[in-house]
Every structure is written in structure tokens, then in C-alpha cells.
């Protein structure tokens, strides 16, 4: 279970507090691989989560893919989480086919500047996933080879609001029931 992932404590505190509990994970290897990058570990219910600053994300991901002990050559999933005032997390679920290990990589983008480098240069699988994330959260992936919207209609301008942001309103639905409908059939008549 998640232990302490709240952003309440500072990153350093969290690291000091948590490091001991990563014995059974691949944290040591990951940490060694990502020496050059500022990394912070965390635990999810299943996998190890590491936080990488967004400036270093592609460098970090490429190291993770190319390291001989890790070989994260398979991108399971790429998405984002809207943390409202705390910015947007972009989440990468990695898997290593040769080593059979999993890793979650997270990076936080500030709300003012939701720009991140594209991961399609690391895995081609990121292509559509990034397009989806871009149109749903307004995260722009710089250098993406094909930055069209994926799922949303082409003829609707969604540039001011993004569907999966918490601030995006629900659609108004006509409620076809009760008094609103004028459900008195006799009065309504045929037609």
C-alpha cells in the first residue's frame, strides 16, 4: 500500500524515510543506472515508482531502456494524472521483456507550462498514447512526429479545456424522466 507519497513532506525526507524499505525491489539497480539524474523512489501497490524531474525525463527513460541490467524495452502505458493545483503527473509504465521486471516512472509538470519531450524517440509505442494524453490533458509533447488529436473529433476546438482535467465540466444531459418530461401521457397525446 502506498506509504507516504504525499507531497506534504519534502522530497528529501521521503527519500531518507523510504530507502530502507526498497530491499525487495529493483531500486538499487535503477538508482545506479540513473546516477546522473535526480531520482526519488516511491512504492505503489505493485511496482516501484520513481520520480524524475521533467527536464531529465527522456534522458532517464533512455538510460533505463539501454541499461543491460534493466532493459526496459516495453512501454506498457503512458498517461497523465491531473493533480489540480500541484500540476500534472505524466506516468510511464515500463516493462522489461528480457528481465521480467516492472517500473513506473513519474514526472510532474507545472500547470503553467505543460510541455515535455516526446518519448516516441525511445519507444514507438508512445506515439498514440502521447497523442491521447495530449488531447485529454493539454500536455504538449515537443518533437512528437504526428501531433494530431487521436480520439477527439477533429471539428471541435478543444484548445481551451481538456476532457480529463478535473476542471472540465460534465456535459448537461437532458433528463428524460419524471415531471420534466411532461410524463402525463394523456395530456401529451399521440404524436
Amino acid at each position: 500500500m502506498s506509504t507516504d507519497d504525499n507531497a506534504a513532506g519534502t522530497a528529501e525526507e521521503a527519500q531518507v524515510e523510504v530507502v530502507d524499505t526498497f530491499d525487495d525491489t529493483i531500486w538499487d539497480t535503477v538508482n545506479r543506472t540513473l546516477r546522473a539524474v535526480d531520482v526519488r523512489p516511491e512504492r505503489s501497490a505493485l511496482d516501484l515508482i520513481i520520480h524524475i524531474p521533467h527536464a531529465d525525463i527522456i534522458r532517464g527513460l533512455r538510460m533505463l531502456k539501454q541499461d543491460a541490467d534493466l532493459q526496459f524495452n516495453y512501454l506498457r502505458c503512458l498517461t497523465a494524472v491531473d493533480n489540480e493545483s500541484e500540476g500534472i503527473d505524466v506516468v510511464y509504465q515500463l516493462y522489461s521483456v528480457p528481465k521480467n521486471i516492472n517500473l513506473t516512472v513519474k514526472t510532474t509538470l507545472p500547470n503553467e507550462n505543460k510541455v515535455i519531450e516526446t518519448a516516441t524517440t525511445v519507444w514507438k509505442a508512445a506515439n498514440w498514447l502521447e497523442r491521447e494524453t495530449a488531447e485529454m490533458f493539454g500536455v504538449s509533447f515537443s518533437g512528437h512526429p504526428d501531433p494530431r488529436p487521436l480520439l477527439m473529433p477533429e471539428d471541435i476546438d478543444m484548445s481551451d479545456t481538456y476532457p480529463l482535467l478535473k476542471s472540465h465540466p460534465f456535459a448537461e444531459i437532458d433528463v428524460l424522466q419524471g415531471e420534466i418530461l411532461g410524463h402525463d401521457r394523456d395530456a401529451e397525446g399521440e404524436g
Partner: protein
Amino acid sequence: MSTEIFGFDGVNVWVDGLVRVLLIVGFMTVVVMGLIYGERKILARFQQRLGPTRTGPVGLLQSVADALKLVGKEDLRPRNADAWTFELAPYLVFVPVFLGFVIVPFVLDWQVRILELGLLYFVAVTGINIVGWIMAGWGSDNRYAMIGGMRAAAQGISYELPLVLSLLAVAMVVEVPSDSATGESLRGSLNLNEIIAAQAEIPNLVWQPLVLIVFFIAALAELNRTPFDIPVGESEVVGGPFVEYSGIRWSMFFLAEYAALLIMSLIFAAVFLGGWAWPAGLFQDDPWPRWAQALLVTGKAGLFIFMVFWVRASVPRLRIDQLMSFTWKILLPLMFAQVLINGLVLVYDWPEIVLTVTGLVGVLVLVMAVDRAVRHPRPRPAPATQLEGEAAS
């Protein structure tokens, strides 16, 4: 000018022609409706379904209902369609098929006309409908239709060859009743009645097994039937040239398709199974009564039709390049070889058993060639290694 029809002498030729045309068209329409019903029921059985059940007892009137519906439907034409081509195309598919009926021998002496060059006439006339297919494909201003029309043209022309050669192979060795004047036994005839009469005792099936198989395959292709339904492939070009047609024009295509199926089956019965003559000739010199002949021919044609339906329920569709390779690289050489052997048999008066043996060897070669083609497929066009631009989008 006058002629004789149904025993009435001195009938004007035009009246005579009209009566024959009306008879054929009426007869055909009814039979085609029966065929459509039959196909739906038989296919349904192959697929463990019930098939049509609603209209009439066990759905017998389904085709009638369909025909009424089609006739009542609006005849649509896309705005950008080439008007003349679009509207004329169904006639060019429909008319040649019905012209083919002129020489079809239903039973002894019951046919529209006995033509000395019957088979030649048949292949000449039915070949025209390819033009109609291309016109339909081009005139519809639809890309599916165009692809379908092009496929139809390629396929129709390619399979015309093995079809003609197979008929030729049979026609050249047919034994014509000896000329009473000279007493010489003659070989070779394009007259269907003579071809049938020559099979009174042994049908051509025995002498020409390879030709029979090639004819069946080529006929399937000519009829655009599975596995050669590439021009109309439902899952690829969604009906091909017909995709923009509706109502009566569409039903003309449909009618032509099934009428062609019927002609092919009757020609098959006549050329390979001895039409109305075999096996009657085994027991007596005179032909059987007409009703028995009709039953015989119906049964033989029905066998062909059932085979067509059966194949349709069982086999996937070929791809266009495989289709072309198959006819040009396998069927055509085999048929040339067969024609050559038939010629040798004629010239050197070899015993006819040679035909059977070589035919069976030919069948073996066909099977092996197909197996080999499947095991060693042609290398595919080089895959696109570099996907630049919108990579993998």
C-alpha cells in the same frame, strides 16, 4: 419469311423470335428465383442455419418478395456518376448472358436455335459482359466500384482463356456420327447437340478429367463465385461494381449472375456429363422421353450448382495476384498441354485411354503445382522499412 415453332408452320420470323425470347426470359426469371432460394437454403444448411422461412411455406416465396422489393425500390444514381455508362452497364451484363441461352440444349431438340458453331457462339457472346462490369465500375464514380471493375476485367479476361481452351479440348476430340456417304468417322464439332449425342455411352468426364476440373475452376471465376469473387468481395470492395446500384438495375446484375450460373451448369452438363444422352444411351439406342431427359439434365446441372454453393460455403477468397498467377502459370499451360495431347491423339489415332491417363496425370500435376505454390509463396514486395513522417501513426 416464316418458320416453325411448336409445330405451327408458317409463323413470321419476328413473331417466332419474340415468342422464344419471352419464353426464355420468363423461364429464366422463374428459375433464377428458384436458384436464389436454393442457394440461400443450401448455404444456410451448410452453416447450420434455417435460411429463409417467413414468406410462404418454408420461405418458398422469399425470392418473389425480394424481387418485388427490388422492383419497387428507387433507382438511384450518384450525382457524379457518368450517366450513360452507369445506366447502360446493367444491360451490357444482362443481355449477353441471355443471348447465351440461344444455344443451350435443355433436352433433345428443345432449344432456341441449333447452331453449328454453338460453343464458339457461347464463348463469344458471354465474353461481352466484361464490358458491362467495367462500365459499371467506371460509371459509378466510386473507388470501390472502380477497383472492383478493374478486378473484374482482369479476372474475366484471364479466365476466359482456360475456359475456352477447355471447351476447345473437348470439342476437338468429339466423335461426330459418321457421315453416311463416306462412312468415315469424323472428329471435332462445336455443335452442342452433336457433342451430347457423342456421349451417349461414355461421357467426356471419363476422357477429360483434367479439362473438367479446369472448366469448373474457370467457370467459378467467370461467374465471380467464391473463391474467385474478388471483383465483388464483400469484405474488401463491398460489392465492387454494384456498390452504387439499387433497385431494378441492381436486380438486373443479380439476375444476370444467376442466369450465368444456370447457363454454365447446363453447358457443364452438356459438355462433360453427356446432357440428356448419357446414361440413356447405355440401355437403348433411342433417347429417353423428354421428361426423363429434363430430369436428367436438371440433375446434372443441379450437381454443378450444388458444387458451386458448396465451394462458396467452404473456401476463402484468393488475392488478385494469386488469382492471376494461378490462371496464367498453372491453368493455361496445363490446358495448352491438354490441347496438344488431344491433337496428338487425333493425328496419330492413339487409343482414347491415352486421354484418360494423361488427364489424370494432369490432375496430379495441378494438385502438386498448387501445393508447391502454397509451400513456396512468391516473395512479398519488400516491406517498407523506413516509416518516416508520421511514424507508425
